[in-house]
């Protein structure tokens, strides 16, 4: 007999959907990504390529990272799904990964970010201390076009307890200059708190 219902647990809450083509039902062709984004309004995970190539739609299924655009909802019966919205603990606050992404500024447009965070989470659940190479490998299916890769790796390495990632470094010339001439002594918190003679910005 064909199944009539599909039951999913999403971010700790159980949902039971009736399967079929009628209004409000989950058609057998509906992907998990569509169910999450459109039906449950969990729009955090993104859908970019819809063919398993970019990782933007990554969520956790029974603790493993999956691309939700490639799964049919009817095949996920009984599974436990966590989306980016479910990562933050209502009491303890942000997941350490999320905090590290803020501290390291590990995103630009942020479209790829939910998928990358969930892929990284899946890795860390499997192996709390992955090596830098294992981290890169685990993310090799995640597309990011703004090029936040270097800062993402800094953030994940930090959570994984690895040494600081120095793949990218930024050097400020001022660090080389001994005794640069200050605009004024540091008497006041901001030099624009008042003007100095010849400071044409204030004229």
């Amino acid at each position, binding site marked *: 007999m064909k199944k009539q219902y599909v039951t999913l647990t999403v971010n700790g809450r159980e949902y039971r959907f009736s399967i079929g083509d009628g209004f409000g039902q989950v058609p057998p062709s509906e992907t998990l990504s569509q169910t999450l984004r459109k039906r449950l309004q969990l729009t955090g995970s993104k859908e970019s390529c819809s063919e398993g190539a970019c990782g933007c739609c990554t969520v956790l299924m029974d603790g493993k990272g999956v691309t939700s655009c490639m799964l049919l909802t009817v095949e996920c019966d009984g599974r436990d799904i966590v989306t980016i919205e479910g990562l933050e603990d209502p009491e303890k606050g942000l997941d350490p990964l999320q905090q590290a992404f803020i501290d390291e500024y590990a995103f630009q447009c942020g479209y790829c970010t939910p998928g990358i965070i969930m892929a990284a989470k899946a890795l860390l659940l499997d192996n709390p201390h992955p090596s830098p190479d294992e981290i890169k490998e685990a993310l090799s299916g995640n597309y990011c076009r703004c090029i936040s890769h270097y*800062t993402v790796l800094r953030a994940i390495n930090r959570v994984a307890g690895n040494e600081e990632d120095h793949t990218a470094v930024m*050097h400020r010339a001022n660090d080389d200059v001994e005794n640069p001439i200050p605009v004024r002594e540091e008497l006041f918190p901001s030099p624009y708190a008042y003007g100095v003679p010849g400071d044409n910005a204030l004229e």
Partner: protein
Amino acid sequence: MSKFEYRDIKQPHYRHIGNYTPRKDAKDIVTGKAIFLDDFSVPHMLYGKTKRSPYPHAKILSIDTSKAEAYPGVRAVITHKNMPEPWGLGLPVHRLLMEDKVYYVGDVVALIAADTEEIATEAIDLIDVEYEQLEAVYSAEEALKEGAVELYPRFKGNHVDNGIKYFQPDGPWWQIIRGDVKKGFEESKYVAEDKVAFDKMPAPLAPETPCCIAKYEGGNDYTIWASSQSAHILKLMGEGRIPNSNLSVKTFNVGGSYGNKQSLMTTVLSAAMLSKVTKRPVKIVLTKEEQLMSYEVRLGSTITAKIGMDEEGYVRAIEGDWLVDTGAIADSVQGQVGVGLGEAQLVCAKCPNWFMDSHIAVTNKQAAGIVRGYGGQELNSCLERLMCTVMKEGNFNPLDVFKKNYIAPGDRFIWRDGRWWQSRSSLFFPEAMQNAADRFGWGEKWKGWNVPTSVNGTKARGIGMGVIGNADINEDNTEAIVRIVPDLVGSHRASTAIIECDITESGMGTRSNACKVVAEVLNVPVEKVSITEPGTKYNPSNYGLCGSRGTITTGKAVSLAALDCKRQALELGARHFKRSVDQMETKDFMVYVRDTPELSIPMFKLAPKELSIVGYGKHMEMFNIPSCMAIFVEVEVDTETGHTSIVKVAGGTDIGQIIDSKAVEMQLHGGFGSACIDTAIFEECILDPATGRLLTSSLIDYKWRPFNEFPPYDAYIMESQIDSFMFKALGIGEISGAAGASAVLMAISNAIGVDIKDYPATPAVILKALGKA
């Protein structure tokens, strides 16, 4: 007179500027709460889909929409036959949104609005179209030949208008004619002539596909929600296409754009037309395949030129012709050509003799549009390859040549507006190039032209560099209002500052940087400053994020607006305490007497009850502060397989002043994305000449660099306090990778000992050059 050195520059100490401040939307982004267009919907909304042409050039003989119209859930089907109004496309308008002809694979044949996306998609296949295929042209060179098949009556011989009033107010400008090239070549010791093509029209490929919701509001009014990085540009272009219309444009977080999602004209007009017909809001979200096959890509660029260099390595003469392929729709291409020609003069700023012509052609390919780099990158990719030929002739070290020839304060150039400008930018660009080169190890690694740095079995390493700059970073006008809003409960801590300025967040952090700038001027915590939602209707005017202009132009407008507020607060405070204004100081929404800080009063008590202190600031367009980015790459080429990998990258710039330390670093890293550096190795749109269709229509077929293939990146940044605006910063994002492609080709040529001039240098290209294929 002693030399003015970098260490002599006065370095300010700021409360916020220069440090890393987490973005205002950081938490929303990492928790999935940030809203992008596809996460948003409007009540009673329909979904739009486009029936697209399978042919590059064809006449529509018949089109039958009856089955699609009868399909349950379909609300409207529009074709060229029943368009409510003839809306045009292009600048100048040269075609309609839909015609009885199609000009590229993916061109719009019919529009469908339906209750769901699935129904609309299914209905596409129910439209029967009979085409008569026409001959097609695929390159500017072919298209401009006599007797070539002509696409549009508006463009005789496929030749697009050279200039356009909008970009060149004094009349079209499309050629650099300066000095006397004949004399210049006579004075040159080394002359080289060559042809280089950057014509695979790669795709910037934002993760979020172009999308919008259009809602016809009756009369001539429309509301457009769009994944655009510049609501203003969308409004400007859209109102020019929909006769007499009034667009209110709203934007959200944009999922990557790289200059590529600005006016979204075809998509927006499609949704607007469906909305006008159905009287309901219509959402169109392109699929990844549609984005790759039919959305805007980089310009095709081919240059044939002769360059002369004197014995010291100064470029003395440039004579050439630049062919630009804009695909099937010419939209803003004249601006890109103008910027490209302008940028060429920044790199060869000491060259007194020029005759550089340009020709723009339409072809039967998907449209080229605006992309980060804006003409400059496409020209640079060719021009710097040509410079290599002449540098090699004279056996110069390219680092010396670029340092010498790059624009310095006082040098003059013609920018894309066709007017002369004189640089008042940094003195220290050569120093930035040198210092970045030193960190990279250029001196030890440079062994001469076409000489590898090292060879290890079949692996040969080579280095290359490129330099580019942009004077657009001050373009277009912008205004902003800052209000110091009183609290209602009487605590000064509850005061806040609000910025009114139309800024979208598309990844550069511009919204947060504006808050940071205002917080610095007012001397308040950044958390106390917020900014209005982006949108054209209720905000002061801001041209938007293009040409790396965000930093300076919004920075200037909001800082002046904040300063205006502050001045008023100081004046009110001075009157209150009976002191002079220069004795007053502000901090955290308090005004106090500097040497007697006990005399202090909350700002809101100084303003009339309930009212805010309001300041106004504006930026006016100018083009006299060029930026500069030098990029160095080391590649390793496997001479057996022809495979190239980048093993090291370094970038150097003088950015004036860093606004946000982490944000600027990522601006530089961004040079790996949006079809920049990798267009020299593997990024390309591959056209099947037999069908005119792209073979690279998915993220699997279109090549991109994954996480495990990023080489070390060493960024070097000087902060010489350039006189751009109050906080002395420049914009850099647009050009961070723009000279990367030519640098990579230089590096590959050095590694394998043979000149490579083909983009991208795939294994096939390299093996062929090595005589192995």
